[in-house]
């Protein structure tokens, strides 16, 4: 039974560019949450997707957007990248608000 899969594992982008990160949830999970983790910090909630809609959003600007597909997989898009967007981006899947399982993350570096 595959866990949460994220791609790519590492990414380097230039300021002002746009990036798309992908997440496949654990089998049986229907909810996907995205987190940003800066170095030495705990993960910060970006948003959560359920039934293909954004259900809850953290304190992140509109440059951060997402999507969930009918197969429950999800994408995180970040526009107009800033140096401060450099972080580990984590995807967590769950079902009925329990059993949060995290992927290994995508390390984004903005130069």
């Amino acid at each position, binding site marked *: 039974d595959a866990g949460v899969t994220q791609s790519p594992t590492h990414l380097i982008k230039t300021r002002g560019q746009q990036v798309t990160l992908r997440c496949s949830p654990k089998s049986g999970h229907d909810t996907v949450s995205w987190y940003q983790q800066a170095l030495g910090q705990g993960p*910060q909630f970006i948003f959560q997707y359920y039934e293909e809609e954004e259900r809850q959003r953290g304190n992140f600007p509109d440059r951060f957007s997402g999507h969930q597909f009918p197969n429950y997989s999800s994408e995180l898009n970040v526009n107009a990248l800033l140096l401060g967007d450099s972080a580990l981006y984590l995807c967590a899947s769950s079902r009925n608000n329990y059993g*949060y399982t*995290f992927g290994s993350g995508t390390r984004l570096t903005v130069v």
Partner: protein
Amino acid sequence: GESVGLHLPTLSVQEGDNSIINCAYSNSASDYFIWYKQESGKGPQFIIDIRSNMDKRQGQRVTVLLNKTVKHLSLQIAATQPGDSAVYFCAENMDSGAGSYQLTFGKGTKLSVIP
């Protein structure tokens, strides 16, 4: 600010000793708490969870204690091993309304096991 925080940022423990990592939370309505272990360059790994209707839960070498009166969580690791060296986070599952929950994390405690 974050509703979940940790008392100690670092903890050094001798191999074979027991480790105790503490966590405070502020949202008394939270009904579910999770401890995660995160190794360098990896995503958080589930260790153990506890619901608010419980005071204690045990797993393999780990025990989580929940004190709702003072809104405090602790993670106890028995016979700490070098492989336990990592950053440990507690996370609080908060009701954001309309059936939506989100996990809120603290900054983490770095556990270093001394051989």
